[in-house]
């Protein structure tokens, strides 16, 4: 048992976990009060404007979607939301993909940004050559996954250096 605890791999694992924990804690206290945000997203070949939305967890997002040139789609991963927009239309069509069913014509769609992290919104209707790469980003803060991952990476580096450091290899200086 002592051998196991002394094992360099256990030390490595401990440092990695501590790094991840530190990364998580770095964003854990990011507590912004929820607010309502009205955002208009304009789709055009092959991007969305704005390309990145930064919101806080708990915010209620009111989206108005517009297509500038041709018909575009809007598939927001993680939030079960899909829409299609046609040029010169003030309204757009929305559905929840997991439930299937028909699209419903609306002039706004709203949802609560309850899941933190980075989520892509992608074009779901073939709109041209670069269509598969047309996407934007919804970043819901606090982004625990990112901060934890950076912490884990730093922990991994530190842990590996601890394992590799001369004294841990039993060499007297």
């Amino acid at each position, binding site marked *: 048992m002592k051998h196991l605890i002394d094992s360099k791999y256990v030390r490595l694992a401990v440092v990695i976990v501590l790094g991840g924990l530190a990364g998580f804690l770095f964003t854990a206290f990011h507590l912004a009060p929820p607010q309502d945000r009205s955002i208009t997203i304009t789709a055009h070949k092959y991007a969305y404007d704005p390309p990145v939305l930064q919101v806080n967890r708990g915010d209620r997002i009111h989206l108005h979607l517009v297509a500038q040139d041709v018909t575009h789609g809007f598939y927001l991963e*993680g939030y079960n939301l899909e829409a299609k927009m046609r040029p010169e239309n003030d309204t757009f069509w929305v559905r929840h993909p997991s439930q299937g069913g028909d699209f419903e014509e609306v002039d706004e769609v709203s949802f609560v940004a309850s899941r933190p992290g980075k989520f892509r919104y992608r074009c779901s209707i073939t709109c041209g050559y670069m269509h598969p*790469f047309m996407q934007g980003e919804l970043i819901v803060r606090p982004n625990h996954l990112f901060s934890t991952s950076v912490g884990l990476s730093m922990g991994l580096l530190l842990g590996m250096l601890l394992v590799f450091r001369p004294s841990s290899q039993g060499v007297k200086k």
Partner: protein
Amino acid sequence: MATAERILTEPVPQEIEKKPWRFDVFAHLPWLKGLVRMRSFQFLVILPNLFLFYLFLIAGFFGTPIGNRNIIIVFVWILWWFVLIAVMMPFGSRLWCTMCPLPFFGDWLQRRSVVGVRSGKSPGTLNKFFGLQKRWPKRLSNIWLQNFGFLFLATFSALLVTRPLVSAIVFGVLILLAAGMALVYRLRTFCNYICPISGFLSLYAMTSTVELRSADKEVCLKCTTKSCIRGSDKGWACPWNVYMGKLDRNNYCGLCFECVKSCPNDNISLYLRPFSTSDVALRGYDEVWKACIMLMLAFSYSIVLLGPWGWLKDWANISEKHNWGGFGMFAAGQALLALVIFPALFYLSIRLGKWYARADDVSTKELFLKYAYMLVPMGLLAWIAFSVPLIMVNGSYIVSVASDPLGWGMNLLGTAEFPWKPLWPQWVPFAQVPILLAGLYFGLRGLHKVGSQLFKDPTQLFRSMIPPAVLLLGVTVLFLKLFIG
């Protein structure tokens, strides 16, 4: 310089003396050995790919110009790419080269045989080859042409991976080039020195969990026939010009298994080994720059193709947007990043490490070449992390395109109307994080392994590692920022 020929002239490096665990596959699966010894083996594995390749070319030239409705784009750049980079490379080494249809016609012209072996004499071999059988110029016997070729193609990647016609033209040119070169030069000169795919396969095959090696190198050294490299009536001379007695890395072994057929001592076997532990030595600036180019292209693709910035996509999408100024900036920026900026950063980290370690007895060049191995597992895993969303998000196109390969409105399998349906896209980041962390882990481990071969003093080793290790951490965090930050 990194040539197959160099393997013949250099002494066996020390690192192969301390082999980690390996498992003799042929000893445990004799039927597999029997299979690869069949003369028709390679032809049989190439044949389906040849048929698909023919279909892809037809689809590219005559099918719909919309990429995500054309089989050449969906099957090559989504399905094949993912299988190649995430499955074949880490677990099969250069298995793709075993089944690649590109050099098929060249081999046929050169051998005038699809399956059989022709004994006789051609320069350096005991097989009869046809064509001019010229030697490839020595100064080009490296992977620099593959480096520049791949970087050039990558400049047009936005066109290549979205335009069926562009993909078809590129593959058509490659197949003609392979055939033409086989008529002029010896063996697989195209694969060794020109093929842009072969260049990165050679690099990332180093990490693979399989290797084809001689069971006992002493047997090879005593062998008088050297049939593996010279050929015999049982097998063709190694198309990659590799002598098994000195083969200690996967880089330039194309897994054609001709040596298994021709070895008179039954001394060649396929081995399993741990990931990224055995071939940990880059041997030339060409290989180091290949590692830098591939890592930076993974970075560039992640920004341009998977990023949200439309202006950058417009710059890369030259044939539609015609923004030549923007395209010039994109091309120059990408080339500068891959050829100058990142290699300079890496060089700086090496100089810092050398200074901190007071390592006057180790040359900067040696440190630069050896420590570059850390970029190999990191690069491969960064490419895998980049490829995960491609298959998870756009994989459903495979189902629809399989039923309507040319986008002509056919419905061969009844799935042509299968909707675009991303597969758990919200979980993609949770797959990318461990992949990138694994890249960092294997990179650091590789760094320590090559460092241990360079330094006897553990303090020097430790200090020399710190700056490049921090650079590797920076690369990891950058990819994390792009994918999940």
